[in-house]
C-alpha cells in the first residue's frame, strides 16, 4: 500500500524537478524511492491488518505484495539500464514521471479488487506508454509505434469497458468477490459475453494471439529501453491483473472462459515461436519471445490449484523479467554500436567476453535450460498444469519450447562461433556491467534455489 503512495509521489516530484531545477538529483532520488517502496512492501508482508483501502477497492494482500515487489525489483533494474536514456535521449524530466506513473498503474493492477480500479490501473499504465513509445520525436518509426499503440489500445479498452458494463448489468456490482458470489446464482447469457469481452481485452494487454498484432510493430518502433519496460514491468502487471480477475473474480465460471483461453494460448504459442524463429533481428525476436512467454504464463491460469499456479506465475514472472532485462542490457549496447540483427552479435565472445557470457546465461534461461531460473519457471508451470484436462496444451508447449531453443541458441552461436563482423571491442559502461552481473546472479540463484520464491 505504501509503495503505491511512494511511487505516485515520486511521479509528481519528477514533474516538479524541471521547475525547481533539481534535475540532477532526480535519478538517484528515483532509485532510492523504488528501494524505499520495496522496503515498505516487505514490512507490510504477512501483516493482515489494513490491507484494504478506498472502500475496499484495493486490497494489498500477500499476493499483491509479492507481485508488486517483483515489479519494483524489475523497475529498479530497468532504471539502471535506462540511465543514459534519461541523459542522452531526452532531457525532459517528464519522461521520469511518465515511467513512474506507468509504474503506479502497474502497482494498482497487482492489488485491485474492484473493476473500477482495474480499469483505472490499466489506463494509468497504458497512457504514459503511448507517449513513451513515441518518445523518439524525430523517428518516424517511433511515432508510428506510439500512434498504432494508442489506436489499438483504445480499441481494447473499449472491449474492456463493454465487458465491465455487461457484467455490471447482470450483477449490479463492481466488486470481484461479490461478482464471484453471484455467479453461483445463475447468470444471463450477456454476463458470460461480458467475461469473454474482458478476456479479449486482457489478452490484448498481455499480447496473446490473435490480439498480438500490435506488439511486434510497437516494440520494434519504440526506443529499445522502452521496449524493455513494456516487455517486463508492463507485461508482469497486465499478467497479475489477468490472474486476479480470472482466478478471483471469475474463478467459478471456468467452464465459460477456460476453453477459449486454451485456444488463445495454443495459437499464441504457435504464432510467436514460429515467427520468432524466422526473425533476423534480435530485437524483433525478443518481441515475439515475449508473446511466447506470455502464453506460457497464461497456462498457469488454467491450472487446477489456484495457489500453486499463483506461485508458479510469480516465479515465472520474476525469472522472465530478470533474464529479459539482462538480455536487453546487452542488446542495448550492441544496438548502440552497430545494430540489432543476429549478425551484430557475431563474435561478441571475443569483443566483450563478459557481455557474451551474461547474454549466454540470460538466453539459456529464456530457453529454459537447467540450472537457470527459466528451467524451473517452465517446470513449475508444467507441473501446475499436469493435473488439469489440458494435457494436449502441455505437449504443444513442450514442442514450442524446443522451437524456442532454436532461436535463443542462434544468438549464442553468433556470439561464440561466428567471426566478428565488427572488429572493435564492445564497450559497456560500469553501471551496465553491474546490471548484467546482477541479472546473471539472480538468474543463477533463482535457478539454484527455486524454493526461495515459492515459499513466499
Amino acid at each position, binding site marked *: 500500500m505504501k509503495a503505491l503512495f511512494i511511487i505516485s509521489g515520486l511521479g509528481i516530484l519528477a514533474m516538479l524537478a524541471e521547475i525547481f531545477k533539481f534535475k540532477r538529483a532526480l535519478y538517484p532520488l528515483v532509485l532510492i524511492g523504488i528501494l524505499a517502496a520495496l522496503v515498505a512492501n516487505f514490512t507490510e508482508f504477512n501483516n493482515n491488518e489494513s490491507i484494504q483501502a478506498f472502500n475496499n477497492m484495493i486490497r494489498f494482500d500477500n499476493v499483491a505484495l509479492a507481485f508488486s515487489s517483483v515489479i519494483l525489483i524489475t523497475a529498479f533494474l530497468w532504471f539502471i539500464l535506462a540511465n543514459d536514456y534519461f541523459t542522452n535521449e531526452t532531457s525532459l524530466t517528464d519522461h521520469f514521471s511518465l515511467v513512474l506513473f506507468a509504474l503506479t498503474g502497474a502497482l494498482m493492477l497487482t492489488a485491485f479488487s474492484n473493476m473500477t480500479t482495474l480499469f483505472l490501473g490499466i489506463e494509468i499504465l497504458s497512457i504514459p506508454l503511448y507517449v513513451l513509445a513515441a518518445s523518439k520525436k524525430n523517428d518516424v518509426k517511433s511515432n508510428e509505434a506510439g500512434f*498504432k499503440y494508442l489506436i489499438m489500445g483504445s480499441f481494447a479498452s473499449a472491449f474492456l469497458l463493454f465487458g465491465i458494463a455487461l457484467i455490471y448489468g447482470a450483477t449490479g456490482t463492481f466488486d470481484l468477490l461479490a461478482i464471484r458470489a453471484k455467479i453461483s446464482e445463475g447468470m444471463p447469457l450477456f454476463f458470460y*459475453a461480458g467475461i*469473454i469481452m474482458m478476456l*479479449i481485452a486482457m489478452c490484448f494487454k498481455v499480447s496473446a494471439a*490473435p*490480439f498480438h498484432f500490435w506488439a511486434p510493430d510497437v516494440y520494434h518502433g519504440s526506443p529499445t529501453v522502452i521496449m524493455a519496460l513494456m516487455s517486463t514491468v508492463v507485461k508482469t502487471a497486465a499478467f497479475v491483473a489477468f490472474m486476479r480477475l480470472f482466478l478471483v473474480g471469475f474463478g467459478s465460471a471456468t467452464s465459460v472462459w477456460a476453453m477459449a483461453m486454451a485456444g488463445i494460448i495454443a495459437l499464441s504459442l504457435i504464432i510467436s515461436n514460429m515467427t520468432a*524463429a524466422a526473425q533476423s533481428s534480435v530485437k524483433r525476436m525478443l518481441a515475439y519471445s515475449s508473446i511466447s512467454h506470455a502464453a506460457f504464463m497464461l497456462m498457469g491460469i488454467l491450472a487446477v490449484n489456484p495457489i500453486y499456479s499463483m506461485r508458479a506465475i510469480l516465479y515465472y514472472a520474476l525469472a522472465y523479467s530478470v533474464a529479459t532485462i539482462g538480455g536487453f542490457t546487452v542488446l542495448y549496447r550492441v544496438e548502440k554500436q552497430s545494430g540489432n540483427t543476429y549478425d551484430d552479435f557475431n563474435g561478441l565472445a571475443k569483443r566483450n567476453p563478459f557481455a557474451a557470457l551474461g547474454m549466454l546465461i540470460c538466453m539459456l534461461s529464456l530457453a529454459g535450460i537447467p540450472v537457470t531460473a527459466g528451467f524451473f519457471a517452465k517446470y513449475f508451470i508444467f507441473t501446475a498444469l499436469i493435473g488439469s484436462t489440458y494435457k494436449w496444451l502441455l505437449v504443444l508447449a513442450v514442442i514450442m519450447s524446443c522451437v524456442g531453443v532454436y532461436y535463443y541458441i542462434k544468438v549464442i552461436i553468433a556470439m561464440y562461433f561466428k567471426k566478428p563482423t565488427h572488429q572493435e571491442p564492445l564497450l559497456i559502461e560500469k553501471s551496465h556491467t553491474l546490471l548484467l552481473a546482477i541479472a546473471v546472479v539472480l538468474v543463477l540463484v533463482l535457478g539454484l534455489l527455486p*524454493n526461495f520464491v515459492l515459499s513466499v
Partner: protein
Amino acid sequence: MVKLIGFVPLFPLLGFLINGFFGKKMSKGAVGFIACASILASFVVSLLIFLEVHNSSAQKATVVELFSWINSDTLKIPFSFLVDPLSCLFLLNITGIGFLIHVYSVGYMHDDAGFSRFFTYLNLFVFFMLLLVLGNNYALMYVGWEGVGLCSYLLIGFWFKNDAYNRAANKAFIMNRIGDLGFLLGIILIFMNFGSISFGEVFNKASSVSTGTITAISLFLFIGAMGKSAQLPLYTWLPDAMAGPTPVSALIHAATMVTAGIYMVVRSNIFYSISATASEFVAVVGAVTALFAALIGLLQTDIKKILAYSTVSQLGLMFLALGVGAYSSAVFHVTTHAFFKALLFLGAGSVIHAMGGEQDIRKMGGLKKALPVTFTTMLLGTLAISGVPPFSGFFSKDEILAHTYEHSKLLWLIGSLASLCTAFYMFRLMFITFWGSFRGTHEQEHHLHESPKSMTVPLMVLAALSVVGGLLGLPEFFGASNFMSENLDTVILRKNPSILSHETEWMLMGIAVAVALSTIYFAYQMFVTHKVLPAEKESEMKSFQRVVYHKFYVDELYESMIRKPIDLISEAFYKFFDVQIIDGIVNGIGTVSMWKAGIIRKLQTGHIGFYIMAMTVGALTILFFSLMN
C-alpha cells in the same frame, strides 16, 4: 560450536571465489596466503568441533540444517550437515593434511604460470570434499562426490597443453562416471525403498527392508566406491592421474578423495552388516585389488606411479577391512595412510623438484646426501607403510589383518602377501633413489638441492604424524584404550565383537613383523649390496616380469574389449541412426516450421486496419464458440 559447522566448508569456498575472481590480479604471495589461510581457518573450526563432539558424553551426532534445498512432493531434501565422530575425523584429515599440502604447494608451484588457477581448484576441491563428508543425506554426498570428481579432472589436466595429460584427465573422469552411475542407482533404489535419502531415517528403517534389496543397494553403492577409490576393475585411472602436479596426487589421489569410497561404505555400514553377500564381495574385491596392485608396483620405475599403485593396493586393504566388518580399522588405516602416503608423495615431489622434473628412479640414486630432510622423512614414511613397529602403519595394518584372519584365512593370506610386496617395492624405491651413486646427467647433479622451507616443514610434520599416528588405535591388549574404535562406537550400528585370543593376535603380529623385516633385508641385499637395477629395456626382462611391467595388460584389454567395440557400434549408430533418422526428422521439422513461419510472418503487415479486422474476427469467433456452450 557445532552450530558453526557451516563455516568449515564456507572458508574454502570463499578462498575459491576470491582466488577465482581476483587471483590473476593479485600477487602470488596473496593468492597463496588466502588459499592456505582459508584451509587453516576451517581446520581450526573443525578441531574445536571435533573436541566438543569427542568430549560430549551423550548426544554424539548432531544434524545442523542450513536451509531447505529441494522440496518437491514426496522428495524433501534439506541442505543439512551431520556432525558426528566419523565426519569430524574426516574433517580433521581433510583440513589438516589439506593445509599442509597447501603450504607445500606454495613452494612447489612457485614458478608455475597457473599459480592462482592451481589454488583456485585446490580450494574448490577442499570445499567439495568437506561437503561430501558433511552431508546428512545421499544427495548432498553425491554433490560433493561429483564436485571432487570435477576438481580431480581439472587438476589432473592442470598442464592442459600436454595432450597425454588431458587424456589422463578424461580417463579419470570417464572411469569415475561408471562408478558414479552405480552410486546414483543405489541412491535411487534407497529412495524407492525408504522414501527418504537422509541418513538417520534410512538407517533406522534398514532392518525392515528385505535383505535382497539391501544387497542390491549395497552393491550399487559399492560400484560407486570402486570408481572413486580405484578398485578392480575401475582402478586404471589412478596411475594415469599422476599426470597432475605432485601436491594434487598427495591431496586428492592419496589422502582424501580416493578415500571417499571408504567413507561412504563406513557411513552406510548398516547395509553391509545386514547383507553378508555384499560384504563378502567387498572383501574379495579389496583383497584381490590389494595384491594385484602391489604386484604391479613391484616393477614400476616411475616414482609417482609406484606410489600410485601402492595407493590402489592400500585402498584395497581398507576395503578388505570393510568387507570383514572391521569398519573402525578401515577408518584408522585411512587416517594413518593419509599421513604416510601424503608424506611419501610430497617427498617424491621434493625429489622430482630437485631432479628438475625427472621421475624415473633409474636415473636417480645416492640422493641421501643432497636431500637430507626429504630422505629422512621419506624413510620414516616408508617404515610406516611397510608395517614396521612402532610406526603408525604397523598398527592400522595389523588391526585389519587380525580381523581378516578371524573372518577367512585365505583373505588373510592374500592381504599378508600384499603387505609383503608393499614392503618390498617401497624399499626398492628408497634404496634405488637414495642409496648408491647418482645416475642422472651432469647438469642434474649440479642442480640437486634440498627444497625450500615451505616444502620441508610440511614433510616434517607429516613424518611426525606417520611415526606417532599409531597411538590413535593401540590394540586393546596393550592395556591402552583404542581411541579409534571407541570414537566411532556410535557410528557403527552393528558390531561383531572380536573373538580372537590375545595369543593369536600376538602370533599374527609376530608373523607380520618378521615378514616385513625379512623383506626389507632381502630388498637391501638386492638393491644396495648387489646393486641390482631395474631393466632398461624390455628385452632384458623375463616373460612374467614383462607381463607385470605392462600392468597385466589391463589397459590394452579394456582398449580392445570395451573401447573398440563401443567405437564401432557408435560409428554404426552415427551413420545410420543419427544421420539418416534423427537428422532427417529434425531437418524435416525445421523445414516445415520455416515454411510455416514464412506464411505466418506475412500476416504482420504493418497495416493497422488489417490488425483491427483480425482482432474483431478473433473476438467474434471466441464469443461465438464460448457462448454456444
